[in-house]
């Protein structure tokens, strides 16, 4: 899925008065009405933020509240249909943008897409079908072996309490690895903000993929534990 080759416009036409407004504006500088949502632009510029991976969560939240107060459909209830629609679309985009930007990993993934790297989504959603990342081979191998044994023991009627404990023990190194990746993602984000280099982005992408793999593995463990608990 590649994006179509389009020249990215920098202005948007105000549907209320016909004047042109820069893309980063939310309200027409001429007539002050809310502008319809452009199909161009990105989450960072929408919040008036530079394309940086480190950001102050409190500042982000404050901007989110301020923009919500400007766009929300509640405040356009009596307005004409075009402005109502613009407010709905701008609020939706704002909420979607905030959801992505407030989470470090989601923010980094989003930036990869903006910078033209292929998205992680398709690969990440089906962990079982994806090759184990090389750096995780050791942990994953050990874990899978343990999981198989736990399942076997369960089949042969071992007490569930003991199995749950075993599962918890098997979980610990994965959680540790996950924490490592959190730190690594943060470090790479800081590095990208400093060097804006392609190599850093590639490394970040690799790290995020591994992190996804671990997240899915932990979800598998949770399901296993839940089925033990409910059995």
């Amino acid at each position, binding site marked *: *899925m590649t994006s*179509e080759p389009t020249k990215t416009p920098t202005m948007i036409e105000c549907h209320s008065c016909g004047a042109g407004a820069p893309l980063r504006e939310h309200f027409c500088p001429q007539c002050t009405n809310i502008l319809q949502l452009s199909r161009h632009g990105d989450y960072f510029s929408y919040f008036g933020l530079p394309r940086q991976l480190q950001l102050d969560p409190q500042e982000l939240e404050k901007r989110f*509240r301020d923009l*919500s*107060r400007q766009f*929300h*459909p*509640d*405040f356009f*209830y*009596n307005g004409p249909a075009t402005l109502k629609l613009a407010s*709905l*679309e701008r*609020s*939706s*985009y704002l*909420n*979607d943008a*905030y*959801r992505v930007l407030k989470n470090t990993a989601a923010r980094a993934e989003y930036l990869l897409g903006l910078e033209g790297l292929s998205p992680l989504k398709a690969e990440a959603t089906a962990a079982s079908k994806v090759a184990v990342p090389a750096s995780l081979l050791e942990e994953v191998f050990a874990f899978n072996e343990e999981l198989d044994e736990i399942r076997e023991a369960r089949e042969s009627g071992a007490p569930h309490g003991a199995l749950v404990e075993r599962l918890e023990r098997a979980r610990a190194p994965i959680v540790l690895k996950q924490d490592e990746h959190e730190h690594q993602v943060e470090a790479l984000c800081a590095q990208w903000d400093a060097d804006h280099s392609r190599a850093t982005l590639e490394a970040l992408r690799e790290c995020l993929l591994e992190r996804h793999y671990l997240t899915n593995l932990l979800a598998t463990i949770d399901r296993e534990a839940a089925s033990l608990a409910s059995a």
Partner: protein
Amino acid sequence: MGKVVGIDLGTTNSLVAYVGEAGPVVIRDASGDALVPSIVSVADDNTFFVGREAQRRLLTAPARTVYSVKRFMGRGLSDVKDEAAHMPFAFAPGDGEALRIQLGSHALTPPEISAFVLRELKHRAEEHFREAGEFDFEVDRAVITVPAYFNDAQRTATRDAGRLAGLEVLRIINEPTAASLAYGLGSKDRGTVAVYDLGGGTFDISILKIEDGVFQVLATNGDTHLGGDDVDQLLVAHIAEALRAIGVAALSPEATQAVRKAAIQAKWDLSDQDSTEIRVEPAPGLPSGFRQAITRSDFEQLIQSLVERTLGPCRQALTDAGLKAADVDEVVLVGGSTRIPLVRRSVETLFGRKPHSDLNPDEVVALGAAVQADILVSGRREMLLLDVTPLSLGLETMGGVVSKIILRNSTIPTTGREMFTTAVDNQTAVDMHILQGERELASDCRSLARFRLRGIPPLPAGLARIEVVFQIDANGILSVSARELKTAVEQTIEVKPSYGLSDDEVEQMLIDSFEHAEADFDARLLIEARNEAESVVNATEKSLRLPEFPQVAAEELQPGEQAAIEAALADLKASLLAIDRAVIQERTLALNHATQHLAEVVMNRTVKAALSGKNVSEV
């Protein structure tokens, strides 16, 4: 433009409120009662009764009286099979999934039944504004609340009910969020609040962050089939067991209602007493004067597991909000069932702090709905409510697996996008199945609708690129649009809701309801005649009970006058049991006439007493 109100359309009771000059107020009837029981009943002559009037008929005409209809909103016949067995009213044999309730000769959908309750509230509010001397007293717009955990079909059904009642539904908002608006009113509060809302039929938990007047819901969870009704049901089963022990095997509908009434009274008693006696009123097939003692600890044992069922959703909501119980600054209780001491204790234990219940838990949701209605029409910006969608939205893909497009607890409004293409050359339509829920298989989620995307330009297979946009608006209601990106052709989408009504069906019902308007008007006149009669009865009984009455009677009444008053009173009371408006009005007049002299006498004595001992200049 007419008036705007906020409505809490509850499982057991409904209320209407508005924002006046002094802030939000709940509208009460002449006797000061704010609650309209969410009950609808129909008489043999097709007269409809709503509220208290219908509630009285629960005991006398159970098969023609519908309660707790909210539990059936937006649901299909197959969903409610188990529950339907407990209900004394019947479900119409339906075509497919559409659910209809048999009310006399009418087979009505849950939105149509709810519309009766909404019309009653609309009328109550209009009367209030008219009496207040407002020139434009018509109520034409409303914010209506729903449980936070209601899915799209249930929200849409509620909006349809509003339209059927002649209201423009400005917004559907979530009950716990509405409650937080009422609580946060005028304060400069900030912090994290958990709203625990256990009503008649539904349970919600919402975790909010409040700052700068923005009420942002972080996470919500709940159970749309858990509430006071279930508590009643457990007590009914408990009583039925005791009845079986003395040889009463099956309960008639009348007996079931008598038992249910006794169960509800016992539940109320046990909120402030350690023990009580269940007293069942006489009904066909019951031993007369059946009584059974019950202690609070018996009761708590009975409902323990039910109360525990609310704690799982609370923990899940905290997890989804990324918080621990200790991070919550305040806990607010909403809904009548939070009066149960065990519920309060359980909530206090879970969150480790004493919950708030400063505002009346029955009224706080309607007050919040009124505040939101006022925000919408006034454009005031001091407060803003940002809610979330309670359930994930997805599409069925290969092998019946759901691919999630919008995740639960996403702030609304929100959008989700999905790209589609064609599988064969010149294909011009694509089918989709949209679902709501957290499970991975389509069969375990709620089916919302099936769509057919039409008008795709004929292209070789795989070349068309259709972008489908799922928009959840600020009501939490979904709409879908699509366009082919290569040609920018907008697609038309045919929606077949899985459980709800189509727009055409709602239109038809609106037309039908105008045709029924005359019958509705008659019902209204009857209710008004009864209310009038009841107030005359009350006033008369009050005079007869006055301590000075025997003296008044001896000194000032004609011989036989007291007997005449008592006879007229008994006649009028007897007529209230029937539904003949002319008779009620005639006897009301007769009683008024019989008591006229007495009223004058009492008035004169009062005035004399007030003036005695005062000199002329003071008068």
